[in-house]
């Protein structure tokens, strides 16, 4: 099956389109919309990564540890930048939309890996993908989204701040990719957690304070 990514995209993402028209509030629509955009970005990144793999003579290890973190993070940042520049600088909106985008990306990526190599898949694989790659994609994009809410209004900060945030996300993603392929695989799953858990604890504390 040559068009497996496209088929999976249609199967997973298309059913969400009618849901967009049913959802009553704007925030839910934005969240689901960005989940779909994340999957679309994954589809585009897949095609781009294949092209990049050809350019680097099929050196899979080099491409996955050095090139794909850059291409994927740049592609994922575009919709977040679009949202931040034209629509909102609200921290919670940017954080949830960018996290949804990252998760949408990870959902399609997982599905494609699963469909391409079903014999190597197990429950353990599924859990490690959730704790590792899915959380990493979500955390990296959320990092950019969260940062954007701070720098969006400051004209002097906007360009250089965006570049700095993107580099931080690329570094995080690339470190995860190298860890996954090294003998320190367990650390790869702790890495996204180290970014995710403090944010979650902080959010829970803030919600309790508000109550």
């Amino acid at each position, binding site marked *: 099956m040559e068009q497996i990514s496209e088929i999976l995209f249609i199967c997973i993402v298309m059913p969400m389109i009618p849901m967009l028209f049913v959802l009553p509030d704007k925030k839910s629509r934005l969240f689901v919309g960005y989940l779909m955009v994340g999957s679309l970005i994954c589809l585009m990144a897949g095609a781009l990564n294949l092209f990049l793999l050809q350019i680097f003579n099929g050196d899979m*290890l*080099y491409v996955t*540890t*050095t090139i794909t*973190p*850059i291409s994927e993070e740049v592609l994922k940042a575009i919709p977040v930048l679009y949202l931040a520049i034209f629509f909102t600088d609200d*921290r919670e909106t940017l954080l949830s939309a960018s996290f949804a985008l990252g998760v949408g990306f990870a959902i399609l990526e997982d599905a494609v890996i699963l469909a391409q190599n079903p014999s190597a898949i197990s429950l353990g694989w599924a859990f490690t993908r959730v704790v590792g790659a899915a959380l990493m994609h979500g955390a990296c994009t959320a990092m950019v989204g969260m940062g954007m809410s*701070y*720098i969006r209004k*400051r004209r*002097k*900060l906007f360009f*250089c*701040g965006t*570049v*700095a945030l993107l*580099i*931080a996300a*690329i*570094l*995080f993603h*690339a*470190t995860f990719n*190298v*860890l996954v*392929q*090294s*003998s*320190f695989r367990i650390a790869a799953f702790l890495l996204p957690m180290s970014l995710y858990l403090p944010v979650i604890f*902080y959010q829970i504390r803030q919600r309790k304070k508000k109550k």
Partner: protein
Amino acid sequence: MRAEFWGIIICFLKGDKVEGFIVYIYLAMLAAAAVGFFIGAVKYLRPRKPLYASMIVLGVGCIMIGKAYTILRIITGLEIEGIFHVGMLGTVGAFAFFFSANFGQIDSLVDDGGGTFLKYRLISLSAIIVTAAMYLFILLGPAPTAEKIIDGVVAVSIAAASYFHLKHIIIPDIDYGVVNCLRIYNALALAYGLLCMLEIMSAANGGFTVFRVTVCLLECVVSLLLVPAMDKGVQKWSK
């Protein structure tokens, strides 16, 4: 393991080229940046804290992840010299954050762009000239073209940030006193940029030498001190 550790150090001191030694040096650099980052993260990576301080902490975080990535590349048997790898972006990211913090947050407090401070702006250009001169040395060296291009990107980020570091060391700050409080941090960040350039220079001109080790160890010390120096300055100005 212990014997292997000392064996590598003795071989290195005798002048033998030992690639394994690089890991220890990078580990020291990672540890120094990690200590600085975690001290700063606990205090400044939360809302209602000065954005300037958060950006410096994130910059040191970039140094930390960059070094971690480089160590992992060495451990997994991947090349780190003569090719582009993401570890280099650690330095670029750090200086992008340092530049953003100084240019976007602080600079307009001390410089209105008028003729009064032209003298300081011109003197600060010397930071860019020095970085460019060091890069010229790399360009004329035996390094492969790809490495020279990548070093150029790193040099640009260092030059841009160094301009503001030097400017904020020398410029008088009468109205707000914010830059006055940050002079030590700016001096350290300027020194860090210089050390990074020296490291790139020595790497581009041949292997792992005693000079390069010394530069890396100095980098360790400076990256460890960056956040505490900034913290001291921020506390002074917020009093």
